[in-house]
Every structure is written in C-alpha cells, then in structure tokens.
C-alpha cells in the first residue's frame, strides 16, 4: 500500500520533469541558449532518477510479496524463487513499460551528458525528442497501465508464473531485446535533432555511432537467446517460426544492421545523408510498430496476448512519430542532397549501398508477410503466410547478402582498379573447394550447394583481412604477437567488424545446415526397440515416473551410443494438469540429436526424434558476433587511427 503510493508519486514527478525537459530543450535549441539547455538536461536527469526510484519500489514490492499491488499479484506467488520474482519486474505488461522507460532515460542521460560538450544546439533538440519519448511511456504508466495499481482486497498469494516461462532463456532474452530497442531511440533522437537544427554534417552520426552499435549488439543477443530458448524449451525441433512476434523483433534488427553500415559511408565520404536519416527513423518506427503489433492483438499469432488497452496508445504514438519525423525530413529535404554521389558501383560505398538496399528489401518482405492478415482483412477474407513464404521471398536476398559478405570488405573506397578475378582469387578457391567437398560427400540439395560455398568465400575474406593485418604488424611494428595485438588494438573498429562478420557467417552455416539437412521421425517404441534417424540409432530402455515438488515427471530413457537421453513430460496438478515437455538434446559440433517425449502408451512411448545438423554453430556464431561488437565498440571514435594496410587496388588514401 505504502509502496504503491510511493511508486505512483515517483512516476508522476518523473512525468512532470520530462515534460518540462522537453519544452525547455525545444526552446533552448531554437535560441541556441546554453543555460536553458543545461536546465533541460538536468530536468531530464531528474526524471531519470524518478524512474530509478519507481523501479526500486516495484522491485521492493515484488520481493516483499506485497500482494496489495495488482502487478505483484498477477506475476508472482510465494513459491517463486527470488531471481524469477525479480524478473517479474519486466515480465508483465506494465513492468516492461517501466523497464523500457528506465533504460531509455538512463541511456538518454549518458548520451546527453556526452553530447552537450560537442554541440549545445544539437543536444538540446535531442533532449527534447528523448524527453518526449520518455513522456509517452510515463503518460501510459500514469493514466492507463500503472504498475502500481492496487487491488480492492488483498489476496494471500499471487497467481504465479507459467512453467513454460520459468526458464533461464525466457528470463534473459526479453530484457536484451527491449534494451536494444530503447537504446536505438538515442540515434533516432539525435537524427531528428540534426534535422531540427538544420545540420546536415555527420556530427550526429559520429556521436551516436556507439549507441547504434550497443543497440544492435543488445538486439543481436536478444534474438540469439530467444532462438536458444525456443529451441531448448518449446520442443518442436526448431528455433524460428516466422510468427508475428518473432518478425516484430527481427525487423528493427535488420534496419539497424543496415544503418550501422551506411553510417560509415556518411562518416567517410559525406554521402547518403538523406538515406541515413530515413533508415534511423525507419528503424525506430519499426520498434514502435513491433510493440504495437505485439501488444494490440491485431494479428493472428500463436501467442495469445492478453487483450490490453495499450494498442490504441502505441498506434497513436506511432502516428505521431511518423508525422514528426516526416515533417522534419520534408522541411530539410532540399538541403539533403549528398555533395559526393557514389562514384562507382564497384566500390566500398557501392557495396554498402547494395547491402543496405538488400536489407531494406528483406525488411519490407518480412513486413509484408507480417501485415498481410491486416491488409487482406480490410478488403476481404484474412490471408496468412507461413515459413514457405519467408523462405521463398527471403532466401534469394539472403544469398545475395552472403555474396556481399565475401566481396564487399575487399573493395576500396571510391572505385576498384584491377581485375575481379585477381581480387577474388582466394575467395573463389575457397568456394570451389567447399563445393567440391559437398559434391564428393553426396550433397545434392541446391540450397546447400549455393549457400555453403558463399559462406566459405566470406570466411576466406575475413581470414585474409586478419592475415594481412598480422603480416603488416610483423613488417612494420616489430616482432609479434605483441605487434599483432597492437595493430588489433589500434584498429579495433575494423577488426571488431570482421569478427562480427565471421560470427554472422558461422550463424549462416548453422542456419543453412539445420534447415537443409534436418531429419525427423515420429515413432512408438516398446522397451528394447530402436529407431534410426540419419546416422543415429536410439534404443528405448524404459520409463520412470517420479514426483518433484509442485510437479510430476514421466521420464523415458533412450540409449544413444554410450550415452543415455532422458526426455520427460512434466505435469503440474496445481495448474489444472498443464503438461510441459522437457527436451533431451545431445549436441556435437556436427549435429544435435533432439528427442521429445510425445506420450506414453502402456509400457511403450511415443517419441519424436530430430537430427539437426550444425545447430551448435548458431549459438557459437552469435557469441562471436557479440564479441566483435564489444571489441569494436570499446574504442573512442576520436582515438581511431587507420593504420592498417589499404585494401587491394585502392586508388585513394583512406581519408
């Protein structure tokens, strides 16, 4: 009771402060007024402090099991462990809004404090935009969906958490995704600020580079963990189902991927200005659109979201954001012509542009598939598309992106001189080698025969770049490995990016392998009987049932070589007999044997056995990708010195 009042007070104070901050920031930006700008920033910091207070109160209410608060009652119970209870903070609708606003205000504060030294005007406008976004979340929490709403009567215990969600992967993937989306509001705010301030230079790009990378890294972690959770917990043998909820998370990631590449073109060559504004705005709008689609229940999804009053609010915010960004872009459209057009298609900037166009096309294809039920529903009967649509429309685009991963990093800025064959000889050799090996191994699936050689060519490109860096270090910087470490340290941004490329190629190999070569069988087995899937033979040995706390377990034992796999079915009598599958997975670098216990029939069992080749590489690649982001992101942009050799065939100095 006391806690709820305190929390509501924090939210209200925070709202007043950010509204003040937005107004003051706008006035300060117009007048280029240093003192007012400082007032606006301080109001924003204070608003952020209020959100920290509100978050602490919500956590306290959860951990002290204060069931007077509706949110605590709905998302936890007395038997829930401490970490899961704390995770309920962002596990529900209202709490996730508070979590989003908290992160946005924290990252916004850091970006404003850093930006104020560089440009008062730009930062004042950015302050206004960020405060406006935080204000939207606070209005929703204060007036529509308060995390501190009280119950009329105090229950003795809460409703608890669904067992499907009591899992580490479920605990950690949503907060990463939400953090990634909220972080991307910083580049958006500075882009709008640059438009409002009439600045077309790359200052906003340079200033927000790290926030965009942090946002992208967090989204990548969130997506990878989400796939990991789906694969290990849901028990359907796959990791990605093209559900609207997954697409809503994928689209902003695709747009952010495009932006972190095109931003480099603007930084290096001063071109693609209008495009970059458009991309940042689009990426931000996609995060809001995704939230709207997920929360409003307008799309048919296997996730049945509680119908919430938030749909219209997010739709309104989306419309407002489109209007503001559109007006800001239109006002400056005359001044946004790039001074240097892209000179030649066969250049680094040409490759970046093509990569961008492909990623935008992929985003558009996913968006079309996601919105098709809405669009067709308006004109007649509702149409839906599933995995076949996304595979047919997306695969050619993804193959083109794989080819670009092999070629793009080799191309010099401005234009290529010299023959293609000479430039690509090692990549072609690598691709040919893999193709020959696949053919010799009896592979006949066209998808694998095209995609895996492309992956090999891309890996060759990354390795060559590392090799060239190492050779350079030995020649110029003295004996290595010390020299190699120094070259790496001085070009973290470049080598971090190649590591991320390496990671995404490894992920691609995993996706291709598990997609093309997945095998599965559904069988009923009596004790002693065997089933063979691919190269693996499983023998059913027997079954055991036991009681474990709040649930009963039915465990089957299957022998695979000298290992025993134990898939299980858990039943929760307290939750109306809800069943939960526990998948048994035996992972090796080559393939996963994935066994689901479908049911029991006398002393026999029904099992589904999947063999998923190369799945492990998806998780390994995801980790490499994130390591690459961390490596490239820890350097200050000012301290960046290009000391690595220029790419083959370069005609111009690096800058």
């Amino acid at each position: 009771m006391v806690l709820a009042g305190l929390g509501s007070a924090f939210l209200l104070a925070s709202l007043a402060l950010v509204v003040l901050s937005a107004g003051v920031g706008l006035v300060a930006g117009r007048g280029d007024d240093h003192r007012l700008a400082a007032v606006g920033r301080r109001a924003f910091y204070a608003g952020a402090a209020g959100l920290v207070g509100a978050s602490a109160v919500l956590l306290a209410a959860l951990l002290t099991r204060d069931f007077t608060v509706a949110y605590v009652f709905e998302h936890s119970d007395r038997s829930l462990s401490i970490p899961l209870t704390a995770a309920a903070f962002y596990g529900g609708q209202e709490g996730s809004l508070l979590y989003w606003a908290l992160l946005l205000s924290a990252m916004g504060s850091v970006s404003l404090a850093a930006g104020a030294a560089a440009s008062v005007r730009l930062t004042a406008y950015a302050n206004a935009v960020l405060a406006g976004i935080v204000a939207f979340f606070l209005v929703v929490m204060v007036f529509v969906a308060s995390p501190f709403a009280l119950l009329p009567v105090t229950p003795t215990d809460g409703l608890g958490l669904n067992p499907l969600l009591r899992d580490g992967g479920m605990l950690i993937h949503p907060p990463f995704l939400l953090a990634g989306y909220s972080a991307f509001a910083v580049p958006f705010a500075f882009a709008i600020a640059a438009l409002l301030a009439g600045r077309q230079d790359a200052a906003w790009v340079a200033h927000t580079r790290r926030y965009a990378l942090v946002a992208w890294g967090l989204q990548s972690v969130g997506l990878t963990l989400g796939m990991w959770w789906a694969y290990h917990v849901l028990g359907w043998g796959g990791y990605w189902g093209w559900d609207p909820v997954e697409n809503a998370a994928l689209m902003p990631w695709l747009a952010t991927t495009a932006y972190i590449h095109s931003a480099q073109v603007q930084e290096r060559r001063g071109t693609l200005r209008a495009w970059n504004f458009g991309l940042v705005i689009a990426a931000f709008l996609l995060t809001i659109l995704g939230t709207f689609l997920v929360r409003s229940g307008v799309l048919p999804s296997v996730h049945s979201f509680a119908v919430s009053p938030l749909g219209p609010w997010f739709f309104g915010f989306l419309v407002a954001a489109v209007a503001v960004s559109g007006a800001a872009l239109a006002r400056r459209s005359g001044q946004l012509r790039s001074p240097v057009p892209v000179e030649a298609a066969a250049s680094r900037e040409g490759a970046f542009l093509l990569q961008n166009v492909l990623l935008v096309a992929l985003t558009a294809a996913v968006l079309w598939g996601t919105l098709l039920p809405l669009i067709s529903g308006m004109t007649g009967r509702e149409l839906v598309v599933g995995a076949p649509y996304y595979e047919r429309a997306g695969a050619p685009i993804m193959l083109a992106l794989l080819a670009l991963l092999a070629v793009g990093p080799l191309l010099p800025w401005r234009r290529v001189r010299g023959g293609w064959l000479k430039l690509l000889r090692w990549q072609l050799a690598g691709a040919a080698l893999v193709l020959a090996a696949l053919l010799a191994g009896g592979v006949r699936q066209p998808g694998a025969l095209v995609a895996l050689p492309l992956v090999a060519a891309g890996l060759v490109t990354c390795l060559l770049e590392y090799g060239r860096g190492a050779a350079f270090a030995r020649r110029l910087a003295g004996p290595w490995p010390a020299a190699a470490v120094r070259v790496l340290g001085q070009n973290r941004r470049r080598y971090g990016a190649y590591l991320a490329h390496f990671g995404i190629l490894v992920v691609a190999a995993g996706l291709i392998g598990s997609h093309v070569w997945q095998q599965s069988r559904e069988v009923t087995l009596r004790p002693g009987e065997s089933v063979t899937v691919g190269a693996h033979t499983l023998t059913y040995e027997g079954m055991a049932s036991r009681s474990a706390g709040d649930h009963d377990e039915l465990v089957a034992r299957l022998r695979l070589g000298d290992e025993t796999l134990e898939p299980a079915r858990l039943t929760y009598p307290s939750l109306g007999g809800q069943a939960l599958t526990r998948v048994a997975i035996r992972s090796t670098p080559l393939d996963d044997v994935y066994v689901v216990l479908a049911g029991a029939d006398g002393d026999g069992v029904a099992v589904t056995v999947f063999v998923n080749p190369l799945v492990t590489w998806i998780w390994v690649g995801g980790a490499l990708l994130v390591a690459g982001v961390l490596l490239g992101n820890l350097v200050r942009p000012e301290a960046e010195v290009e000391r690595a050799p220029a790419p083959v065939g370069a005609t111009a100095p690096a800058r």
Partner: protein
Amino acid sequence: MRASLKWLGLGVVVAACVGYLVVSATGSSAEYYQTVGEMRSHGSSGDVRVLGTVQNDVVRTDGGLHVRFSAAQDGQTMPVDYRGTVPDIFKPGIQVVVDGRMGSDGVFHARTLEAKCPSKFSSAQSQGTPTN
C-alpha cells in the same frame, strides 16, 4: 545527373526483383485464416488455416502421436484428424490453429497443429480456460 539516373535505374531494377519475389511467394503460399464458423459458411478448397476451440471428444492413440477431436467456433463444429507431436498445453477448452485441408470424408486433415501459447503477459491461471 547522369550518375543519379543510373542509380535510379538500378533502384528500379532491384525494387522490381524484390517485388516479384514477394508477390510470387505470396501467391504460392498465402492461405486463408478463418474460424471454424467462417470456414463452414465460405466453404473451402485447398490449404487453409482454421482457428477453433478443442471440444471434449479428444481421442489420442499411438502413445499420443495421433489425435482426433472436434474444433468449434462461432456455433459451428468440425472433426479434425492430426498425426504428429501435439503441443504441451493441448486439451479440451484451449484454442488451436490447424493448418491443412478438408478431406472428402468430411474430416479436416491437419498438417500442423498449434496451440495458442501462453504469453508472458498472462498469468498461469488464465491458461487452459476457454476464451471464446
């Protein structure tokens, strides 16, 4: 000017390719999504996705890998036959989405069966209760 025309042309070509991909993929894989009631009133040919609530007549054989039940929605009912792994939360009262086609035997033969799954935004007790 020449350069920008060239880029514009390239953009048009790329957009046309992507447009073709999207349209052809939609044409070859889009399915109607409807409730049991809507399907009964529109009739159906080819693959459709149907939303319905599982009734009390569930029969599971083959250790649970083969399931027959009736799905109902909007006052209409249809028999469903499905072979494969059944979702954990499948039981009478929940909503399912089946993907498949109506056979000449008057039974809907489902290739996939998905249960509307719990989201992090709803609590345990609200699961497993009929929502229509």
